[in-house]
């Protein structure tokens, strides 16, 4: 019969694919929005130090949260790792995280970078400053985010689409400080100053500024760091400089990557242990440096590359607020025509 070899192939494939993860006495399961490469070595170290095996899936944050929510009490997940606070807040409101008490985490992480209820904790920090092209813009001309809406910047600003969570969080921060009406006014002014319709990611905005499309780009620090560390993109990235806005006021807008313990974590103790491991000095150093981010723990030095951007005052707003106002921020951007 013709069918037999097909059957054989199917069953061989099926058995290879369905072979489950071997159960170990001590393990911890992670749903991670942070990509494997930026976390796996740290997890391997954790396993080496503690003997706890780590199982990992990575994915987009929103889908991981949906998966957690639908799995409910059957979910194998112990830890959810996200690359921005907006998603951690979503996870929290969907009830897929639980509050934990940890003296170690509370002392290590500044209060504004963790959830007041202990459901999520910031592990690394990044800022979203203004990046300008020296020669076309002098730092004296720059002052605040608010100023970017003034007509003198007409046709000079590059920033990515409002689909991106970092822009949503930035506008949410503005709403928290100034209210909806002022934020909408600002977004309208900013949109009027766009050098081109938003497209591409943060790195694209930086290269656009470097190659003359615009004079100012708004982008996260780690993208600039990543470009400077990349031999092919370094020359481009060196054409822009970082300006820290709002230093006399609220401080520069920041975001975090962070984690929380899943609501039905089967290995809760291991999960807490993993989070605590991530705020130890050596872990912080590695974890932050891998992606050119700032460590959240006081006293741990940022990488030399980041130090070259200079010191800055960060916005002290509790980041939970950014998640809360995310939906409002999207409405504001829709109305103001930021696509």
């Amino acid at each position, binding site marked *: 019969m013709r069918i037999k070899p097909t059957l054989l192939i199917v069953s061989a494939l099926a058995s290879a*694919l369905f072979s489950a993860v071997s159960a170990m006495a001590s393990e911890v399961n992670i749903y991670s929005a942070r990509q494997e490469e930026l976390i796996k070595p740290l997890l391997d170290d954790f396993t080496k130090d503690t003997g706890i095996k780590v199982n990992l*899936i990575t994915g987009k944050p929103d889908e991981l949260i949906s998966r957690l929510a639908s799995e409910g009490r059957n979910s*194998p997940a112990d830890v959810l790792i996200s690359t921005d606070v907006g998603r951690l807040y979503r996870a929290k409101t969907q009830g897929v995280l639980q509050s934990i008490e940890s003296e170690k985490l509370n002392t290590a992480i500044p209060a504004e970078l963790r959830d007041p209820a202990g459901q999520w904790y910031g592990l690394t920090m990044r800022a979203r400053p203004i990046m300008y092209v020296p020669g076309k813009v002098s730092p004296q001309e720059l002052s605040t985010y608010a100023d970017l809406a003034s007509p003198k910047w007409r046709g000079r600003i590059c920033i990515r689409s409002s689909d991106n969570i970092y822009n949503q969080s930035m506008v949410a921060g503005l709403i928290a400080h100034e209210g909806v009406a002022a934020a909408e006014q600002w977004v309208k002014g900013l949109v009027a100053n766009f050098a081109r319709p938003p*497209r591409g990611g943060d790195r694209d905005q930086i290269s656009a500024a470097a*190659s003359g499309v615009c004079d100012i780009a708004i982008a996260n620090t780690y993208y600039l760091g990543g470009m400077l560390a990349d031999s092919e993109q370094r020359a481009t990235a060196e054409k822009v400089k970082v300006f820290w806005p709002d230093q006399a006021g609220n401080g520069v807008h920041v975001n975090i990557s962070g984690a929380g313990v899943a609501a039905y974590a089967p290995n809760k103790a291991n999960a807490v242990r993993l989070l605590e491991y991530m705020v130890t000095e050596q872990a912080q150093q590695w974890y932050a440096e891998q992606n050119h981010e700032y460590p959240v723990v006081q006293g741990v030095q940022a990488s030399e590359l980041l130090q070259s951007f200079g010191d800055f005052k960060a916005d002290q707003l509790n980041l939970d607020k950014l998640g809360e106002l995310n939906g409002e921020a999207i409405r504001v951007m*829709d*109305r103001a025509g930021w696509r």
Partner: protein
Amino acid sequence: MLPFKVDIWRWSVLIPALLLAMPVLVVFGSVFSPDIEVWRHLRQTVLADYIVNSLVLALGTGMGTLAIGTGAAWLVSQYQFVGRRVLQWLLLLPLAMPAYIIAYTYTGMLDFAGPVQSGLRAYFGWAYGDYWFPEIRSLGGAILMLSLVLYPYVYMLARSAFREQSASMLEASRTLGFSPRQHFWKVALPLARPALLTGVALAMMEAFADYGTVQYFGVATFTTGIFRTWFGMGSQEGAAQLAALLSSFVLVLLVLEQWSRRKIRYFFQGQRQQISALRPLTPGRQVLVALLCLLPVLFGFIIPAIQLASWALPNWLTLLTADFGRLIWNSFSLAALAAIVSVMLALLFGYASRLRRDPLVRLPVRLAALGYAIPGTVIAIGVMLPLAWLDRNIDLLAEQWFDIRTGLLLSGTLFALLLAYSVRFLAVSLHSVEAGLERIKPSMDNAARSLGASPLQVLRRVHVPLLRGSVLTALMLVFVDVLKELPATLILRPFNFNTLAVRTYELASDERLADAALPALAIVCVSIIPVILLSRTLDNSRGS
């Protein structure tokens, strides 16, 4: 016929079809509890953009694929020219190129900071604003990208259709005084219409469902809107309303496609007539035609592949980690398994629709095939919700009755993933299989039966040989589609299970295009194998 036989066909279709339709239905279910506030906001601000952009994208892609696919198929099937044999399978290669990857590579090349524009500026001494250059990251750019990788759907079907037109057809139109050009427009093209429309419909559905390209290009369409509304604004109902509206466009498309084929049922003759010989060309024209056919291959495959290779080359050793072989094996075996499942379902549905022409069979099948136009993420979540619900209840019952926890039986395994693929790609396999079945006239069944063959013998000796080409085509197409598929794989895969597409996405999403080039190239290479097999299948089906 015994009455219970009717029921067997019905139920054997109804149950799997409803299972496949379930994810789509689950998502649409929330339409009945609409989020009026969000809907009002969408209508006042962005909805018009979504509708216009999605329609323009789909129509543009439809026209682009129609022009490229039909043109190439006509030249390859009618004329004798240098390199024709090679070109006829080279033209299929863009199938192996995922749309989001071609979008990344062309952006890298044509962007303001890319080599093309930098070179022009350096050569002519221009600066920004001195010259006009088409913007690749735009709606037009997205149409171009999608047309370049989707035209093989039209090409494949058009090529077979043109080949089946017999020599007597051409002679007849000649005797009526038609020039070759008139023959193409007035005879060949209308005769091939059903095949062309099927190809265009597939391409348009892909365009409707595309997320990666439009998101990267900053074009606001239904798919980006669904994500934004669902996750950004936290309104699943609002997102479902958008998804429902998107699907209604697709439904219209499907109805039109079916309607256009209404009269051509069993049009094709079972026995092959004499196939028209390839027409010779002067050497000069041969080169011209060959170059013309090379264009889509060049832009849809060769140039992006070279760009990927040049990105991957400098540091391929550091990127080629130990688990790379594992990635390839995972991708390959998953795609193979999904292709087999999908084609078996298509055969079941195809035969049921053939044997039972009643709406209770046909409607569920149409419904199940809707998934092709729904973005992968929406399907993934539509699969996840009911499976997790089942898991929860099985778990609860097992705990109550036997005091054991069963945990995640379905949603944490590859079953969920295979279900999602089947939902997403059934349309592809079904189209191929149905097209194959349409060519087997019922009178052939009757003839075989009257010659004393049992139904099984009819199946084995008439249907299997005649269907082999279509089934292989369906297998290969689904295989390549699954290999490229990203969103559903990303969200539904089990622990510690990675594929090439996942690895590509992780690197590309971090805007590390150069590092993403190696896994992307691997996807392309693995896809080439079935594409070449596919081409051979198409060739063989001609001779048999």
